[in-house]
């Protein structure tokens, strides 16, 4: 059985305090606290690369267990803000910086906020197909590289983070059935502007998508796994904003304490948001639903079962 064994993370020490920007963006503290939910945003150092963030998350992973780099057979990096312009692939740069063996496969996945769930399915399938026992799924998408500091719709939301998830044949969590989806015709809702190289987001379009397609996907995924809302101990929803999390939670009738919003001190960390929740999983949780959604537009969900 292949599944999640351990999760390491890296949150840069740097922070942007949104409370100091309230006048600039004409918002009040209640809006930051109760609506967007993002009080502070984690921000990487100027000279810190995406691969550096992955390596720091890997260091945290090593501190949590007995992971031997020479035993790692594949590394997958999920990012759309790679080192340089993406060539070579960031996973190869991580491979070099960590001194991983030549027999270790390394490739990137280009996805945003749905990336961890997609990445989990991809790396599990890759490992099963090739008989691998140890692989690492990284998420690192530092949007600070592409944020327009004057854009209220995005610059109050996104933070930088990285995670490293050890996938092994000695898992703590195994995944159930996944359910995926894409709405390519709405892809321009979240994109990099060709002229400026900066992120642009149609907030209304993304909200409508998140409030309609995502609850339907989660409900269908639970049915596919023969589960009900009450069977799930925690819904680890992508932390787009507090309002998005609350909206999805209410539409599905999930109790507030089962769909936590935890990103107030670091922001929307894109594909890292779900593993950051999983890393803090309560020992009592037996089943966790995970749901990622965003750039693409794309979405994916599954259930994680604790392995006894």
């Amino acid at each position: 059985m292949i599944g999640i064994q351990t999760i390491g993370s890296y949150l840069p020490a740097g922070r942007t305090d949104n409370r100091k920007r309230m006048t600039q963006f004409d918002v009040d503290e209640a809006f930051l606290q109760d609506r967007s939910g993002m009080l502070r945003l984690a921000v990487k150092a100027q000279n810190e690369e995406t691969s550096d963030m992955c390596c720091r998350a890997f260091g945290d992973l090593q501190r949590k267990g007995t992971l031997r780099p020479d035993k790692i057979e594949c590394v997958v990096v999920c990012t759309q803000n790679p080192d340089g312009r993406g060539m070579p692939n960031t996973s190869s740069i991580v491979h070099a910086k960590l001194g991983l063996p030549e027999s270790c496969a390394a490739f990137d996945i280009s996805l945003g906020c749905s990336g961890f769930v997609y990445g989990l399915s991809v790396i599990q399938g890759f490992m099963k197909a090739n008989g691998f026992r140890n692989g690492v799924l990284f998420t690192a998408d530092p949007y600070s590289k592409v944020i327009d500091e004057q854009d209220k719709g995005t610059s109050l939301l996104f933070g930088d983070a990285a995670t490293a998830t050890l996938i092994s044949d000695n898992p703590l969590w195994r995944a159930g059935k996944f359910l995926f989806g894409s709405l390519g015709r709405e892809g321009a809702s979240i994109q990099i502007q060709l002229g400026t190289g900066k992120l642009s987001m149609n907030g209304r379009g993304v909200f409508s998508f998140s409030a309609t397609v995502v609850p339907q996907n989660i409900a269908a995924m639970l049915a596919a796994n023969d589960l009900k809302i009450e069977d799930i101990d925690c819904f680890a929803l992508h932390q787009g904003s507090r309002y998005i999390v609350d909206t999805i939670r209410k539409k599905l009738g999930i109790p507030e304490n089962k769909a936590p919003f935890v990103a107030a001190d670091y922001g929307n960390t894109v594909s890292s948001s779900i593993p950051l929740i999983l890393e803090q999983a309560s020992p009592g949780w037996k089943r966790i639903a995970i749901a990622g959604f965003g750039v693409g537009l794309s979405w994916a969900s599954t259930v994680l079962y604790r392995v006894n």
Partner: protein
Amino acid sequence: MKVLTDDIIAVIREVGVSADVSRIRADTRLSEAGIDSLDMMNVLLGIEQKFGVKIPDERINALRTVDDIASCLQSL
């Protein structure tokens, strides 16, 4: 028109905005009633779903009251 404005106010109530919906009349400025930009996205989504229409982005800024929304719906 009265039926339409009542239906719109019903949608505002159903989507669960943080404002006191009982204070909202057809000509009440929704922002002054406490419906912020996030709740407004939720309201417009609810209206689109209820009436089976798509309200274009370029018309959003002009939708300040229930009457404005009703006029917009009638023009679609």
